[in-house]
């Protein structure tokens, strides 16, 4: 393969291979803890062990690809946008967990995502988020009778 230019080993690719290997280890360890087996045929351990074995093979395959630099090229990526969206999601989870309610949680996620996509109007977006959350809450609660997490605002409705 002399005509193929030598590309650098890919650190991210090596990390993916390592993750797959660890995952295989976790599966193998977890299934080795299972006590009861079936009388006939395959027990509950068989499938996990097969999957773990294949993951080890795939980990090696991914490692080879990474060392040969065969991963697709990646364009630059904006970490701020990702952190904003994940942050919005984290606040949503915290709000619902602390009982602040569905509507404020939705408003925060809406505004955070919208900011991540380049808008700079947090107050407007928060207001839109509140409106959207309100409509969804009423739709689910009254029309579909599916309960969404309620806080002080929702209990007033």
């Amino acid at each position, binding site marked *: 393969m002399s005509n193929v230019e030598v590309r650098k080993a890919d650190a991210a690719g090596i990390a993916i291979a390592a993750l797959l290997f660890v995952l295989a280890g976790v599966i193998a360890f977890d299934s080795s803890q299972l006590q009861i087996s*079936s009388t006939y*045929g*395959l027990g509950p351990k068989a499938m*996990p062990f097969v999957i773990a074995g294949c*993951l080890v093979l795939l980990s090696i395959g991914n490692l080879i690809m990474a060392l040969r630099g065969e*991963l697709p090229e990646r364009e630059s990526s*904006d970490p701020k*946008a990702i952190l904003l969206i994940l942050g919005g999601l984290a606040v949503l989870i915290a709000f619902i967990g602390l009982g602040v309610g569905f509507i404020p949680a939705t408003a925060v996620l809406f505004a955070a995502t919208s900011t991540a996509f380049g808008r700079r109007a947090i107050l407007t977006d928060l207001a839109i988020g509140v409106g*959207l959350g309100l409509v*969804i809450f009423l739709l689910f609660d009254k029309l579909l009778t599916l309960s969404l997490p309620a806080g002080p605002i929702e209990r007033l409705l």
Partner: protein
Amino acid sequence: MDALYSLLQGLAVAIQPMNLMFALIGVLLGTAVGVLPGIGPALTVALLLPVTYKLDPGGSLIMFAGIYYGGMYGGSTTAILINTPGESASMATALEGNKMAKAGRGGPALATAAIGSFVAGTIATAGIVFLAPWLVEVAVQFGPEDYFALMCVAFITVSATFGDSPIRGLTSLFIGLTLGLIGIDKLTGQPRLAFGVPELLDGIEITTLAVGLFAVGEALYVASRRHIVQETLEPVRGSLWMTKEDWKRSWKPWLRGTLFGFPIGALPAGGAEIPTFLSYSTEKRLTKYPEEFGKGAIEGVAGPEAANNASAAGTLVPLLTLGLPTSATAAMMLAGFQQYGLNPGPLLFAERPDLVWGLIASLFIANIMLLVLNLPLVGLWVRLLAIPQPWLYAGILVFATVGTVAAKPSLIELTMLGVFGVMGFLMRRFDFPIAPVVVGLILGPVAESQLRRAMQISLGDPLVLVQSPISATLLAIAAVALIAPFVLRGLGRFKAAED
């Protein structure tokens, strides 16, 4: 003609006002999400699963099928007008369609796509009517070992055979299979990979995985590279209608596209990319106007669009007759069946003919609705593209969390949504396919239970897998499908070296 009789009975079910309404909602939603970038039919069905939990199964399934068909129609609009195909199946359409729109022939491009989709959808649905009963007859004779072998074929073809890289496809598949292990083992009642978390005992919710991968993952990915990609919307100029010349150049590509799309979709091979690209290259070869290809040839829109729709209809054949999903949307539809305790397969045709045939008959109705919705109303759909991107994705994320909370109101579920979102983002960034994960999660546990059932019946003799001729053949096919991409790639390399 048993099939025609069953179809007539199905038609009686499908034209009930409630079912007509569900079909209409389905095609409206489907077209809307097909047009909007960032949401596809698989995600839409995933989001609707918890909402439709309390509705009538027949109606909801008709709606899901409408979303599937509608998504295929709507996707072409986006591909033609902004050159960002919503799904990979519209990529071939975008090649010529966007060029036509730039040359002021956006109207005829949209028209040939819509009419081609209608022609292909109708022929392919007729194909379902005749193929399904026959396949059901075959499937009745399947033992558990044969089902297991069939699922092996589906696993391999969905992940390895047709993707860019078999290793990456298989990696996705096995991540899905691993997720499928989580939860209580049905035969012995022991928890696997649950790590003492009670929420994990029931297994991973398919809705959470699909919504995380498709909605959150896509939002993260698009947001992270917003500074690179600039989208421009081509306005529809000039007449919407096709000239006589356009018709003359379109009808043969429609029929050829259907011939590519339906069989490939109906085989448990998965993916609409292959037939659309086969159709594109065939039209390029057969056309009388080769100089127009690459600059906006109508054949290059008509053929692939027909192939795309025909293959979508084709994937319903293995889904309904064998319970075998070969695309992400089909996997979500299978989840839809399962949430009502229904298992697609020969038994369902025998037990609930009203439901199955009502669904098939409603596909014809959905096709007619879509033609009407898409031709005169295309201008309305295009307006959807004017929604500012920040609001669009913010809205998608809000609906994603609502869908998850409604399915299972717990913080762990929402956290998993975030984790799957990050996973979806990383998979997009490193070019791992998403659909095999979903198919692995939903089909993995079924395959395991079929295998274990087969082994119980044979008292633990693994030879049962090769003693049944059906199973032996299917396993051989799976082996060939697994090895072929590696060997063929080797051949490709050999050729390249020779040059």
